[in-house]
């Protein structure tokens, strides 16, 4: 029944304070997702107070060998915090990326690529003038890292029949020009979606996304089928509906 101390480095993607003052956190590291408990982690000032949502931390923890109980966090060092993620125009999107990452790491160990994409996405949300665009881009890229992004049946520069749009075939995981079974998208939205999923990051971050309602609808439909319902996405869609009834 020996105890094993370990050190890990990652991003806090969930934080659940308990009435006792303890905090259960879920950390995404390069080697995967894991959860631990910080005794009296709600106390301000102590080093366990660094375990805030979206913080990048290095933690020391121990866990008994051959024991599947939660790891006990003993030391925390803060590597980076992004205060702008609390801003009302950014916070909902940061929640979406964290919840999506959490959902994508349920059954498989995708820690390394997802960790880097989440870290990059959170930095983008904090720095870019258009956090909504950043959240859409990184949501699709996180899906891509998990092998769930839609394949594109056309490439940039292909001749698309004038007047025709695109279709996102959610169940087949395919984005193709022209009509078909699935969610219809207008031409501009379809081409933007192809860029969001498969284009260069630099190019995608410059997209205007004229029909954002269509983009959110496409993402929601796709996530609902391939990942499940995300509460943060439902809240975003509700807010979008309230603003554009």
């Amino acid at each position, binding site marked *: 029944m020996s105890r094993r101390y370990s050190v890990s480095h990652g991003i806090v993607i969930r*934080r659940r304070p308990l009435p006792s003052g303890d905090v259960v956190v879920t950390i995404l590291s390069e080697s995967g997702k894991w959860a631990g408990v910080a005794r009296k982690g709600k106390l301000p*000032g*102590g*080093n366990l*107070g*660094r375990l*805030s*949502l979206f913080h990048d931390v290095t933690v020391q923890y121990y866990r008994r060998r051959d024991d599947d109980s939660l790891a006990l966090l003993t030391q925390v060092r803060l590597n980076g915090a992004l205060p702008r993620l609390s801003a009302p125009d950014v*916070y909902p999107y940061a929640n979406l990326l964290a919840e999506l990452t959490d959902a994508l790491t349920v059954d498989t160990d995708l820690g390394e690529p997802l960790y880097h994409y989440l870290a990059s996405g959170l930095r983008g949300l904090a720095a870019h003038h258009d956090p909504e665009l950043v959240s859409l881009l990184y949501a699709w890229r996180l899906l891509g890292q998990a092998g769930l992004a839609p394949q594109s049946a056309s490439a940039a520069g292909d001749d698309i029949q004038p007047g025709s749009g695109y279709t996102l075939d959610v169940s087949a995981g395919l984005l193709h020009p022209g009509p078909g079974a699935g969610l219809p998208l207008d031409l501009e939205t379809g081409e933007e979606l192809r860029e969001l999923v498969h284009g260069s990051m630099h190019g995608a971050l410059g997209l205007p996304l004229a029909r954002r309602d269509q983009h959110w609808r496409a993402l929601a439909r796709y996530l609902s089928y391939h990942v499940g319902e995300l*509460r943060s996405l439902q809240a975003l869609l509700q807010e979008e509906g309230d603003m554009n009834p």
Partner: protein
Amino acid sequence: MALSQAIAEAKATLERCPVCFNVMTRGEEKCAVCLDPNRDQQLVCVVEQPADLLAIERSGEYEGLYHVLHGALSPMNGVGPDQLTIRQLLERLASGPEVILATSTTVEGEATAMYLARTLGEQGVKASRIAYGLPVGGDLEYADEVTLGRAIVHRRPV
């Protein structure tokens, strides 16, 4: 047995104040704070939980009223403005008291305070945020980086 009985009793005898949503004895009109005529009626301190209210009361530095949100915004946990007592707060503030936002200094608490500050600003309500700083009696060397950084940013003239 005693514990379960105490929990059952608490549930039977306590309810939320209809004004500030603090806990109060069932059947009373309002909680003790709201009923106190000596309190500053033009100052409302917004907190996340009743325990936060008690902590501020222990400080002895505040004599206004409270509003308990019963949580903080957390979209990934399904907690949005409609799950908190924000609508009731906005209705209550239509009469124009000043608001102190005393939500936690966690990311969720900050997000809630910033959301409220924006919403209250749109309504023309004067709002302030509790100060960030170092714990009294603590050594600077052992302060965490975020607290220390905010203490520097929000320094005050002496």
